[in-house]
């Protein structure tokens, strides 16, 4: 599509398809790189742009190159991070669209402009990946000739970036919840396993629960293993109860 062409019904259908594709990534196994690669390649296909690159912020607040339609774009993105200047960084910091239709005519990022022009991209547009007040990254669109993107193209890019952002945020929330649930589950299982192990030792050696606990703990210590780890292994049958009793007897012989 050229800059003079208006978005036709064919593009509308393809745009709708792109949205469905991005939303679909949430249904099956989600992979953040898949979503970002999809976003970058659909932008190039649907919009009047030559290439696209994506930066995302990591847990420590640093931007990282997460997707690019070509290797060259990946390097251009990396260059912005390393030199701490470029449209993507401004876009990320302020959470707004940043455009420059002709880098050769001047820009606030001389180092970046030089590299971009050398790579054959004279015009750039950076779209924030935002969810409410939170900006998690930036979608960078590169155009060969020195001309601005159509307003309709910027709007579509923003919409695609928004959907991808929601997909990523949803995945992060699910992952965080799963980790937190996992911690609770594992703590519950450990705590229950200790009680079960106490019961096993108490029955096997005809001692009370307190003594059973002492024996379990002594075995764990003398074998350099954690208490819950030992309890879980005993309950799962990975260590024999006879072994725990034998250790106890050896310990008694040494101390008496």
């Amino acid at each position, binding site marked *: 599509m050229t800059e003079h062409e208006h978005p036709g019904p064919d593009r509308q259908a393809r745009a709708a398809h792109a949205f469905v594709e991005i939303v679909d990534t949430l249904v099956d196994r989600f992979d953040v790189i898949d979503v970002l690669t999809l976003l970058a390649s659909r932008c190039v296909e649907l919009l009047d742009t030559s290439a696209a690159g994506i930066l995302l912020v990591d847990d420590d607040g640093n931007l990282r190159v997460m997707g690019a339609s070509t290797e060259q774009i990946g390097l251009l993105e990396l260059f912005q991070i390393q030199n701490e200047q470029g449209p993507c960084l401004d876009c990320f910091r302020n959470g707004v669209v940043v455009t420059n239709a002709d880098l050769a005519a001047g820009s606030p990022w001389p180092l970046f402009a030089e590299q971009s022009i050398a790579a054959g991209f004279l015009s750039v547009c950076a779209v924030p990946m935002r969810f409410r007040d939170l900006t998690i990254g930036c979608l960078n669109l590169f155009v060969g000739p020195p001309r601005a993107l159509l307003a309709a193209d910027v709007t579509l890019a923003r919409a695609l970036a928004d959907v991808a952002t929601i997909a990523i945020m949803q995945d992060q929330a699910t992952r965080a919840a799963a980790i937190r*649930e996992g*911690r*609770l589950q594992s703590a*519950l299982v450990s705590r229950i396993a200790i009680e079960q192990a106490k*019961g096993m030792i108490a029955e096997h050696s005809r001692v009370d629960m307190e003594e059973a606990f002492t024996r379990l703990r002594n075995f764990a210590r003398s074998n350099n293993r954690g208490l819950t780890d030992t309890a879980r292994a005993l309950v799962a049958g990975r260590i024999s109860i006879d072994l725990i009793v034998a250790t106890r007897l050896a310990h008694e012989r040494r101390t008496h």
Partner: protein
Amino acid sequence: MSAAQSIRIAVAFAREISRSPEAHLCRACADVLVVAGAGITIMGGTAGGGPVCVSNQRMAALEDLQFTLGQGPCQDAFVTGAPVHASRLDVAASERWPSFVDLAHATGVGAVFAYPMTSHGAKVGVLTLYQEDQGDLSQAQHEDSLAVAEVLTETVLSLQAEATSGTLASGLEDAVAYRAEIYQASGMVSVQLHIPVDEALLRMRAHAFASDRPISVIASDIVARRLRLGEDPPGVARPVRG
């Protein structure tokens, strides 16, 4: 969750917490939701778990029975991840959970509503609400219950997030301590019968059901060596002589 809703829930929780250092969350739930009683149970998949609190002992017996049988509105809510409303403990409810409905009738409970405590697909337990009379919750009560279950889920996960890895947060420790004897007894039975602990727990449940006694009592007897489950089919036990 609406702003007004969050404020009411926060105020009710804060009021109960300021009353006692051990947060009486269940009483706060019953207060804010205007129901006769409430229970919070932490569940760990097949691992079990237990009540963190119940607002009164009648509810404790009902929660215990569900643990004994492995069935009831609580279990259903946890497994399906959706609220279970038993607004009328009638014949249909009785067919679904026979023993539970019997005990509910005997303890003067007319309706039970179980809300799973979930967050982004993670399931941590169930909030159960009890009413003395039959009848549905109002739409406002239902919406508030969903919100309270969400707040509780976050509370539980946050408490646990601060605990040392592999150990239970002190506020949640009660959930297991409450059933410690049951787990100890299952360990003993597993050695006696040379079976895995999970199977031992099933045997104990079957025995509790057959002898019409709570599993906590069966566990107590096993730990005190007053009872030894036989190697016979479930439900047949040999009393210890001498």
